[in-house]
């Protein structure tokens, strides 16, 4: 992995393997299931090929070492010991091949068990079955005026034709009512393929659906930790109860990602103004909480290890409160990456950490490759990691470093997301960056105070109300900015739809990034010269 030393070079060594892994994951997702199950053979071939490459390269290295054993050594090339030429990149090729192979193996193994045969058989027969499982995530309201709620349940057993069979799968239970997260439920229903729509196509790994006409029967309560988490989530609602409607809906959304109470017109406005990400639990939540805990523990004077442990514990707590959904776990990982990238104070660490996270997440779950949330997360983090620091360097000469950093974070993240959002929703929001800038100062207080109010709501409602009022003020500002930006003229400019539009956006973005990164060298040097001269004089 990336060396932990103070190499200041931009560490992109893990980027090619990450790209290879992503391509392999796309193959896993889109290839027919039968083909994916035949992957082990392909992987064997791949491993043989990469071993051959490795062996050839190793032989070359040995020969090169013998040659360089001569007294006259060639000076190291510009790339250090990496040298150049096709043989020097052999390690990268092998690593990329291994990454792709790992994803293929994991995908093949996963696809064999993702939908157990007992469940597919039940879906094919269309008979009523009974399942037992734990509620995996909070119930969501049905789409399109459907009064039923959808609850993901991690099924552990299914009864078909009177026999219980052990399985492991996630079913989406559509029932008149849901059940608390982590409760064990039993429910009767008919297993069906999920209805395919736009969202169905985007989420290739969507779970099968169990349609039940009666509410799930809870047979065991949630475990204590989850009960505490439910209390905190409930606290987010109760503490916001006395606030105006926009704020009442937005506060739980910003703190724990529960968007059920957000008015529909506000959701539309947030989307139009490019602020929808504020309503979901993203890596930013974990980054904000982590920085806060680090700052607090640093102020107290704890040693570094304890500070990091405290931040990790806070992150884990947020993870539990928000829910164990995969998207939240992924957000936590990306938030940790962002935090590492930013707080390490080394730009070099950012891309390496991001690539590591992408690699590991893709190996663990190749289905993430087509998960919109994951793609957006990676894009935003990549923007932050690659463009953030150069933008600050460019702007700090004119507007001061702190202001520049404040501006650069949302701009870099937005720019990173741009190709993805344009590919999915071909509407260019020219006010998105401005709206995000306007909202930036409010997001952290809203999140932190909101979480605090939710924690306090159970034990000290009066104080929780006061804290929630502070968070509510921040939420009011966010809602006001969203409504204002959505109402501005030209809030939704049509962009070239489809892949072509995304590619165009990407090209524009890369060109802009290259310009920024290029110029920044000269600018930084100029800057530095003047700064150095100034300090020497002073």
């Amino acid at each position, binding site marked *: *992995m990336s060396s932990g*030393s*103070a*190499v*200041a*070079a931009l560490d992109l*060594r*893990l980027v090619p393997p990450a790209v290879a892994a992503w391509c392999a994951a796309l193959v896993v997702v889109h290839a027919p299931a039968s083909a994916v199950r035949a992957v082990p053979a392909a992987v064997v071939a791949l491993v043989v090929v990469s071993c051959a490459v490795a062996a050839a390269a*190793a032989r070359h*290295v040995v020969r090169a070492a013998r040659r360089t054993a001569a007294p006259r050594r060639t000076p*190291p090339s510009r790339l*250090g010991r990496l040298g150049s030429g096709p043989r020097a990149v052999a*390690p*990268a090729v092998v690593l990329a091949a*291994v990454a792709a192979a790992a*994803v293929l193996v*994991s995908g093949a*193994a996963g696809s064999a*068990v993702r939908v157990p*045969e007992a469940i597919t058989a039940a879906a094919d027969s269309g008979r009523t079955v009974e399942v037992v499982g734990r509620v995996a995530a*909070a119930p969501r309201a049905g789409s399109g005026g459907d009064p039923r709620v959808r609850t993901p349940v991690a099924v552990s057993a299914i009864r078909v034709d009177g*026999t*219980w*069979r*052990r*399985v492991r799968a996630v079913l989406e239970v559509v029932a008149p009512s*849901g059940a*608390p997260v982590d409760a064990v439920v039993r429910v009767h229903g*008919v297993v069906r393929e999920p209805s395919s729509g736009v969202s169905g196509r985007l989420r290739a790994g969507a779970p099968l659906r169990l349609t039940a*006409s*009666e509410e799930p029967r*809870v*047979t*065991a*309560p*949630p475990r204590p930790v989850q*009960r505490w988490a439910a209390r905190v989530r*409930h606290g987010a609602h109760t503490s916001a109860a006395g606030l105006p409607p926009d704020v009442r809906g937005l506060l739980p959304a910003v703190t724990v990602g529960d968007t059920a109470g957000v008015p529909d017109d506000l959701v539309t406005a947030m989307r139009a103004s490019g602020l929808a990400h504020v309503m979901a639990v993203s890596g930013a939540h974990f980054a904000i909480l982590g*920085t806060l805990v*680090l*700052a607090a523990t*640093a102020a107290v*004077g704890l040693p570094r290890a304890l500070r990091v442990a405290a931040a990790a514990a806070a992150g884990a707590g947020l993870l539990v409160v928000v829910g164990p959904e995969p998207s939240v776990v992924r957000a936590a990982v990306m938030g940790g990456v962002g935090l590492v*990238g930013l*707080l*390490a*104070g080394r*730009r070099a660490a*950012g891309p390496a950490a991001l690539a590591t996270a992408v690699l*590991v997440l893709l*190996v*663990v779950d190749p289905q993430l490759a087509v998960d919109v949330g994951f793609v957006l997360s990676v894009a935003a983090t990549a923007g932050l990691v690659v463009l*953030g620091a150069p933008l*600050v360097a460019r702007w*700090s000469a004119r507007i001061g470093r*702190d202001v520049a*950093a404040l501006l650069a974070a949302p701009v870099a993240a937005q720019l990173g997301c741009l190709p993805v959002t344009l590919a999915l929703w071909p509407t260019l929001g020219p006010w998105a960056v401005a709206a995000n800038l306007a909202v930036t100062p409010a997001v952290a207080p809203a999140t932190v105070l909101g979480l605090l109010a939710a924690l306090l709501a159970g034990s000290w409602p009066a104080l929780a109300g006061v804290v929630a009022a502070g968070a509510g003020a921040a939420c009011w500002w966010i809602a006001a900015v969203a409504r204002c930006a959505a109402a501005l003229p030209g809030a939704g400019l049509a962009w070239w739809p489809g892949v072509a539009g995304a590619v165009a956006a990407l090209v524009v973005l890369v060109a802009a990034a290259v310009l920024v990164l290029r110029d920044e060298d000269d600018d930084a040097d100029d800057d530095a010269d003047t*700064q150095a001269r100034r*300090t*020497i004089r002073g």
Partner: protein
Amino acid sequence: MPPAPSRPPADVAHRLAVLAAHRAASTPDPRVGSVVAPAGWTPRAPAAGPAAVRGGAAGPPDDEPDVPGPARPDAAPDAPRIDPPDAPRDDGPDAPHAVPPDGPWDPSVVSALAHAAASLPPTASRTRWVPGWRAAGAAALVLALAAGGVALRASSAPRGEPVVVPTPAVDVRAGVDGDPGPSAERDGAGDPAQQVVVHVVGAVASPGVVQLALGARVADALEAAGGTLPDAETGAVNLARVLVDGEQLVVPVVGATPPAAAAAPADDGLVDLNGADAVALQELPGVGPVLAERIVERRDERPFTTVDELDEVTGIGPALMERLRPRVRV
């Protein structure tokens, strides 16, 4: 620290650089200070790597103009890598080595970004795309382990083998997420939640209301009601069925028409889904022998509690459901 006699491999030079950076940061070296930084300034370690190499490890630039920097051969002035005047706080009492995160720094995202920008290395020639063999091997090992773990977990996944699912121990009725109150209260409820109460009538010794443990079967209920009478038609009730709280169990006498079936063409003209036999069900519009059989199968498995449950029966779609709804009851 003496200038490197020959050009060392990048690794060694780099280690020297790190050492020098630490040394320069912890014990302010007047020579280093005079070369790269004004007095009172202390370069932060990550930023100071390249700077200190020229100052500490490789001597002043004039000594050896063509010293290859370990990471940046096209040596440009290194002053930009010096930190702003607020840097000395890194030398606070709890930061003997002046590694930035150890100092009482302000770890907000914004200031961290600002700091990252301050220590920004020039990018053009400073990207590393290719890992060394060792790093690649380590990464490959980690990836292989991760993939192996996933494959192992997948191979240990249950494949639908039969299993005994314990009958529910507690029937905790709790609201939708965010309302943990009821579940918390019902936790300690104990007995009432673990019982079913059913009404047994018909050909049993002592008809009446009986209480049974949750998960008990019809046979248990009949036993609790004193057992069946000799003329009881036990074939008419499914003795193995799990009891539902609040239900009424009717044990018919041999030869008697099952009471429910008799009630099928009731006064209201509605067909009782739980009572009507297959023939009665076939009188419904759109219900043929096959569908009627499926409805019977479904209710044998579990009696209908609402008319809406009809829609669980295969072959009854929304349209048929709408036609049936006014004609049936439970």
